[in-house]
């Protein structure tokens, strides 16, 4: 067999694998196809639709009404239950697939890219249909949602035509024939329904992904979603595939704990995914060469020794009781600051958030403890926070830019205005 044929076969095989089903099925929904509905349910979990479309505590799944913060204002998620008047019950399959993969609502209205169609576009048509098949089976909830709540000029949806032109490349996922089937599955999940880059890729001033810096971290909603490339210092370079799987599945691994916005993703999405899929994502992330320098050089100028001395003193008195003097903490309980990628992000927002306000790590069935860090904002002033955070970012072989008192002040101010 020719090499070219082999690659085509491999690609087809990979396509079948990533689509997770019978690629030869004709387009359309068979209401009695249990497998399709099951697959749609699973993909809705991978896609984490509930994170935007379910209002917490409402008891009404996918009925919308959740306020979503964007850099341009607050959107309210629509009702995607099958209710015919307030939900999407009247939508055809094609209309649904268009929304998911082309960013077009009914009658062609453009969706705001807060709906991750730029990622969901990678879904295969079968997968998109499966999601619709599943959504058709959930209880219909009559809940009229006024979605359009962005201020002028963003209220003008026609402007999205320009945005889409500049930043949106529609089209389903194309597997890389040089990579393994597992890698391709991970790529499909991460770049498609998993939409990791939505939170983890920095954005340009128009809110579109800066694709040159894919997955290198992004500040949103009071946190900084860290770099999840394979960078040895600031990314997942120090984590094994097993570490990543443990984290996504249970919220904890031997050095780290998920908190903040990632807690919800854990609870609603990744903790319910299959081990094989989590491994595939891990393999994909570990093989991502974008942004990874390969070796763990110092990433910043060495900080002022006086600041390090003060930070060390604060650390010994306030932090070592849990995180220990060598920064390694206790596995499954107190995250290791020593070698921590989160601590060494260029943008220190997450570390400052945790120090100023405390944070509870996520609790899952395999890891129910959910230990929480108390707040220190009441006792440490801006100078002291900057000293101790600069210290942990540069002690024990860590290296990250120093944090100024002014940065702390601004972060404190920003957090005061947030209730979450």
């Amino acid at each position, binding site marked *: 067999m020719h090499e070219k044929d082999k690659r085509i076969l491999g690609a087809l095989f990979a396509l079948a694998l990533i689509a997770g089903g019978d690629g030869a099925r004709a387009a359309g929904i068979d209401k009695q196809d249990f497998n399709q509905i099951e697959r749609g349910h699973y993909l809705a979990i991978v896609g984490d639709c509930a994170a935007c479309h379910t209002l*917490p*505590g409402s008891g009404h799944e996918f009925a919308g009404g959740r306020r979503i913060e964007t850099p341009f204002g607050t959107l309210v998620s629509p009702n995607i239950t099958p209710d015919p008047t307030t939900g999407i019950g009247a939508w055809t399959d094609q209309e649904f697939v268009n929304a998911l993969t082309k960013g077009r609502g009914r009658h062609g209205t453009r969706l705001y890219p807060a709906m991750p169609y730029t990622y969901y576009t990678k879904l295969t048509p079968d997968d998109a249909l499966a999601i619709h098949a599943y959504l058709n089976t959930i209880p219909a909830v009559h809940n009229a949602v006024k979605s359009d709540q962005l201020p002028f000029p963003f209220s003008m949806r026609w402007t999205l035509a320009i945005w889409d032109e500049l930043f949106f490349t529609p089209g389903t996922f194309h597997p890389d024939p040089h990579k393994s089937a597992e890698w391709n599955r991970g790529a499909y999940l991460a770049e498609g329904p998993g939409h990791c880059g939505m939170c983890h890729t920095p954005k340009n001033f128009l809110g579109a992904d800066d694709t040159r810096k894919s997955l290198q971290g992004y500040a949103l909603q009071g946190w900084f979603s860290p770099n999840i490339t394979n960078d040895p210092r600031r990314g997942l370079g120090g984590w094994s595939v097993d570490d990543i799987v443990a984290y996504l599945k249970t919220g904890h691994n031997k050095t780290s704990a998920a908190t903040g916005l990632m807690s919800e993703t854990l609870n609603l999405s990744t903790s319910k995914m299959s081990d094989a899929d989590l491994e595939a994502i891990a393999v994909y992330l570990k093989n991502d060469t974008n942004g990874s320098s390969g070796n763990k050089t110092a990433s910043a100028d060495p900080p002022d020794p006086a600041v390090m*001395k*003060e930070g060390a*003193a*604060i650390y*010994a*008195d306030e932090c*070592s*009781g849990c995180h*220990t*003097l060598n920064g390694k903490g206790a596995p499954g309980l107190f995250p290791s600051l020593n070698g921590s990628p989160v601590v060494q992000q260029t943008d220190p927002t997450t570390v400052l958030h945790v120090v*100023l*306000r*405390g*944070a*509870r790590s996520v*609790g899952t069935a395999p890891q129910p403890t*959910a230990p*929480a860090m*108390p*707040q220190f*904002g*009441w*006792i*440490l*002033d801006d100078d*002291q926070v900057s*000293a101790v955070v600069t210290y942990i970012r540069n002690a024990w072989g860590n290296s990250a830019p120093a944090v100024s008192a002014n940065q702390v002040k601004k972060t*404190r101010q920003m*957090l*005061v205005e*947030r*209730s*979450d």
Partner: protein
Amino acid sequence: MHQVNRRQLLATSAIALLLIPQAARAALIKGGLPWKPGAADPPTIVRPGPWHFFTAQEAATVEAFVDRLIPADDLSPGGKDCGCAVFIDRQLAGPYGRFDGYYMSGPFHKGTKQQGPQSPLTPAQHYRKALAALDDACRQKFGGKVFAALSDEQKDQAIKGLEDGSLKLEKLDGKEFFKLILKNTQNGFLADPIYGGNKGAASWKMIGFPGTHYDYRGWIDRHNQRVTLPTIGIADHPNWSE
């Protein structure tokens, strides 16, 4: 520094606590461990400033008193410079002064010693009455001078008189007042400096208590060795800016 009041947080935070309308009005804890970002109920740190409870005359009396209970010497500054009077002032102005939390319903009967304190007199009321009565007693005994105006020797005499009961206070048990002020003074001397006394952790340095360190794992095995950690308090960390 920013102090977070727990009740304010409860009122404004909309997540984590699910309040189901038909249940009783109380916190309903369900569906996961609650979390309120920034939740804390830190102590109120006493700041120097005007007296919150004492009148100027009462303050003078108490400052003079604590300075004899804890005289200045080479072991530590005196009770006044340590802030013991400030400590007592702030305590009396707060919940302790009112005996908040105490069971203060009647009827009030004296009872046996084993049945404990049964007086309806709160510490704040007690001080108010006793300081005035003390000055009266001193005027009678020391030729018209109030306590604060006495010489050190005379002050000590007056204090001993309270202690052994020989110096009587009008309508009050002087011994009981002495026990109260002694306890409050020593508490202030030995408590964390945030409460106004023990300024500069003077008493802790005197006795060799290194303060509010939380991690002594490196010291538990070091038997019979002096702990060389800096002396710190909840809000006292001179070692941070050395």
